[in-house]
C-alpha cells in the first residue's frame, strides 16, 4: 500500500474544503428536512411541510401539488400555494400535458418545461418535480417561478430530489396506514356483526380476539380477555373442548364441526357447534387458531326446520304403520283363503273377501290422501269447477256410508230449493266423506251424526255434528295442521294419517270457502264448511 504524496496545490485544497463544507451544510439541511417530513403526523401536515421547504429553497410564485388517482388514472390538484405578494388564480394554471408528465417520471428528476410547451408568459418558468414512491407514482409538484431566478443548480436539484423522495415515501406510508386502518376496521365490523362467536388464540395459547357474540354465547363474564391464556380465563368445560380441538387440529390440519352442550348456568344448556381452523401468516406459517361457535338453537329457521323434520319423521313412521296394518290384514286373509279355507266353504270365503275389500278401500283412501298432500305441496292441486247440488253430494255419500256403518245413526236436515254451488264435485265429495268419517271414528257406537245444510250470509253452510269424544281447546288450534294428530292415550285406537283435515281445509280454501270447528272435550264436535254462492240468483235458476 502506498500513500499518495500530499497535493501541494493550494487552490485544490481550498476547493476541496469548500466543497466539503458545502456538502456538510447540505447534509445538515437534508437531515432537518427529512426529520420534518417523516415526522409529519398526517397527510395535511406532510404536504404543508413539503410546500414550506420547497418555498424556502426556491422562492416560487406558485406551487401546485397534483396527486395521482389510481382508480381514475388522473392527476387531481390537491393543494396549491402562492408565493408572497403574488396573486395567482387557480383557473389560470395550465395543467401540464400528460406526455410531459410521462417524460418527467421517466427522467425521474426535477425538470424545467420550455415556455413553448406551457404557453405561459416569458417571465415565468414552469418546472415539474415528480414524486415517486417505492411502489407507485404519488404525483408531482408544478412550480412556477420567476424566469430571472437562477434556481436550477446542482445543489437545488439534489435537495429537491431528496425532499420529493422523502415526501413521496411519507405519503405512500400514510396511504398504506389509512388503507390498513380501513381494512382493520372493516374486518372488525364483520367480526363483531357476524352471527357466530369467534375466539382466536396465538401459538402460546394467549387469546388474541373475542367477539361480542362469543362473550354472549359462552357467558364470559370478564370484559377483556385478550392477551390472557385461555386455560386460565375460560370455563373448565370449554378449556377441555378447546384443548381437544386444538390437538386434533394441529395433527390433522382441519376439524369438522363438533357439537356440544354448553352449560354455563347449570339449569340451562346451550347447544353449540364449534369449528376450528389454523390462522397463518403471509409465509403460510401457523400463527394461531380461530374457534368459531355457532348457536344451534339460535336460528328460528333452524328451529322451524328441525320441528318440520321431526313432524315428517313422525309422519313417515305413522304412514308406514298405517300402510302395514291394512296390508297385513289383506295378506293374512288371502293366505287363509288360499291355504286353509275349505274350497266349498263359500260362507267363510265370502266373509274373508269382504274384510279384504274393506281393507283395500282403507288403503286406497290412505294412498289418495298421500297423493293429495303431495299435489298440494308441489302446487299441482287443481279444481274442475261445475254446477254442483250440495244435497246430491251429501245424499250419495250418506247412502254408501250408511250401508257400511250400521253402528251409527246418520240424520240429514237439508232444505229443498238450495242454491247450486260452483265447485269440484269430486273434491266436495271428498270433503263430506272425510268429515263424516271423522264423526264416525270419534263417536261411540250408537251415536248420532247430524248433517245440516243452511244458506247463510252469502254462503251455503254444511254443519256436521257428532256426539263423540270432542277435542280440547289446546288441540283445537292444531287440527288443521299437517301431520298433527291429537295426542292421547287412545292414539292407536283411531286410525288416521293426520292428513284428512289439512286436505279438507285446503280444498275449502281453494274453493274460496270457509271451514270452522266448534268442539268441547267429551261433548262432541261441529265441523262447518261454507261454500260461496249467490243465494237469490241461484234459487231462481234451480
Amino acid at each position: 500500500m502506498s500513500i499518495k504524496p500530499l497535493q501541494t496545490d493550494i487552490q485544490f485544497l481550498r476547493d476541496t474544503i469548500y466543497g466539503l463544507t458545502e456538502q456538510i451544510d447540505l447534509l445538515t439541511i437534508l437531515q432537518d428536512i427529512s426529520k420534518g417530513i417523516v415526522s409529519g403526523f398526517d397527510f395535511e401536515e406532510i404536504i404543508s411541510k413539503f410546500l414550506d421547504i420547497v418555498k424556502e429553497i426556491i422562492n416560487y410564485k406558485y406551487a401546485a401539488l397534483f396527486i395521482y388517482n389510481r382508480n381514475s388514472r388522473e392527476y387531481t390538484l390537491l393543494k396549491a400555494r402562492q408565493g408572497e405578494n403574488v396573486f395567482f388564480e387557480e383557473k389560470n394554471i395550465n395543467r401540464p400535458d400528460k406526455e410531459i408528465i410521462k417524460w418527467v417520471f421517466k427522467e425521474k428528476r426535477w425538470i424545467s418545461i420550455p415556455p413553448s410547451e406551457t404557453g405561459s408568459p416569458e417571465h415565468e418558468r414552469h418546472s415539474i418535480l415528480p414524486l415517486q414512491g417505492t411502489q407507485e407514482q404519488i404525483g408531482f409538484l408544478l412550480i412556477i417561478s420567476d424566469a430571472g431566478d437562477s434556481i436550477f443548480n446542482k445543489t437545488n436539484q439534489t435537495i429537491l430530489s431528496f425532499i420529493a423522495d422523502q415526501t413521496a415515501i411519507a405519503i405512500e406510508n400514510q396511504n398504506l396506514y389509512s388503507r390498513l386502518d380501513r381494512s382493520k376496521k372493516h374486518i372488525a365490523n364483520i367480526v363483531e356483526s357476524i352471527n357466530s362467536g369467534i375466539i382466536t388464540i396465538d401459538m402460546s395459547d394467549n387469546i388474541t380476539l373475542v367477539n361480542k357474540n362469543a362473550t354472549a354465547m359462552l357467558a364470559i363474564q370478564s370484559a377483556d380477555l385478550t392477551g390472557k391464556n385461555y386455560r386460565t380465563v375460560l370455563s373448565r368445560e370449554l378449556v377441555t373442548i378447546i384443548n381437544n380441538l386444538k390437538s386434533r387440529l394441529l395433527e390433522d390440519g382441519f376439524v369438522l364441526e363438533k357439537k356440544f352442550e354448553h352449560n354455563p348456568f347449570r339449569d340451562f344448556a346451550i347447544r353449540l357447534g364449534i369449528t376450528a381452523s389454523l390462522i397463518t401468516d403471509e409465509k403460510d406459517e401457523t400463527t394461531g387458531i380461530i374457534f368459531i361457535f355457532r348457536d344451534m338453537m339460535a336460528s328460528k329457521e333452524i328451529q322451524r326446520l328441525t320441528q318440520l323434520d321431526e313432524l315428517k319423521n313422525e309422519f313417515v313412521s305413522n304412514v308406514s304403520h298405517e300402510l302395514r296394518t291394512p296390508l297385513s290384514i289383506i295378506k293374512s286373509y288371502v293366505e287363509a283363503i288360499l291355504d286353509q279355507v275349505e274350497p266349498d266353504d263359500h260362507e267363510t270365503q265370502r266373509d274373508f273377501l269382504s274384510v279384504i275389500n274393506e281393507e283395500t278401500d282403507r288403503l286406497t283412501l290412505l294412498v289418495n290422501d298421500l297423493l293429495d298432500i303431495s299435489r298440494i305441496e308441489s302446487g299441482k292441486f287443481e279444481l274442475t269447477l261445475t254446477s254442483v247440488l250440495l244435497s246430491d253430494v251429501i245424499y250419495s255419500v250418506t247412502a254408501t256410508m250408511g250401508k257400511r256403518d250400521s253402528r251409527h245413526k246418520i240424520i240429514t236436515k237439508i232444505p229443498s230449493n238450495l242454491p247450486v254451488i260452483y265447485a269440484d264435485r269430486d273434491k266436495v265429495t271428498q270433503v263430506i266423506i272425510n268429515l263424516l268419517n271423522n264423526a264416525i271414528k270419534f263417536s261411540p257406537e250408537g251415536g248420532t251424526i247430524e248433517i245440516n245444510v243452511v244458506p247463510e250470509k252469502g254462503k251455503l253452510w254444511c254443519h256436521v255434528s257428532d256426539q263423540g269424544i270432542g277435542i280440547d281447546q289446546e288441540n283445537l288450534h292444531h287440527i288443521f295442521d299437517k301431520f298433527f294428530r291429537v295426542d292421547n292415550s287412545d292414539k292407536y285406537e283411531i286410525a288416521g294419517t293426520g292428513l284428512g283435515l289439512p286436505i279438507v281445509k285446503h280444498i275449502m280454501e281453494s274453493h274460496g270457502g270457509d271451514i270452522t270447528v266448534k268442539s268441547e272435550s267429551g261433548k262432541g264436535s261441529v265441523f262447518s264448511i261454507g261454500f260461496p254462492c249467490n243465494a237469490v240468483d241461484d234459487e231462481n235458476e234451480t
Partner: protein
Amino acid sequence: MKKNRTILIVDDMRQIRNILRFSLKKEGFDVVTADSGQAALDYAFSPVKPLDLVLLDIMMPKMDGYEVIKRLKKDDRTKNIPVIFLTAKAQVKDVVNGKAMGADDYVVKPYKFGVLHQKILDLLNIA
C-alpha cells in the same frame, strides 16, 4: 300332538284377532283372544286353561305390548310362557327392544302365516 296347546292372541285389531284365531284353530291349537293389554294380563294371571304361548301386538292403546311383556315376565305364574311379538313396527331398534324385553321371537306384519306357524312350533318344541 298340538292337542291342548293354548295360544293367547293379543291385538286391538278385530280383523287380526279373527284371522289368527281361524288359522291357528285350523292348525289344531286352542285359541283365546284379548283386545287390550289389560284384558291379556287379566286372562294370563287367572287362565281358564293354562297358556302355552302368547302372540303379542306392540302398538295398542292404553297399555302397549312392551308393558304387557314386562308384567308377564315379572310374575312367577307367567314368566315361563313364551311370547312372540307380532307388530307393524319394523325398525331394527324395535326388534332389539322386543328381544331385550324378554320376547322369545318377533314377527313383522304383514307376516306369512307359515313362518309364524313354524316359530310357534319351534317354541313349543313340537316336531
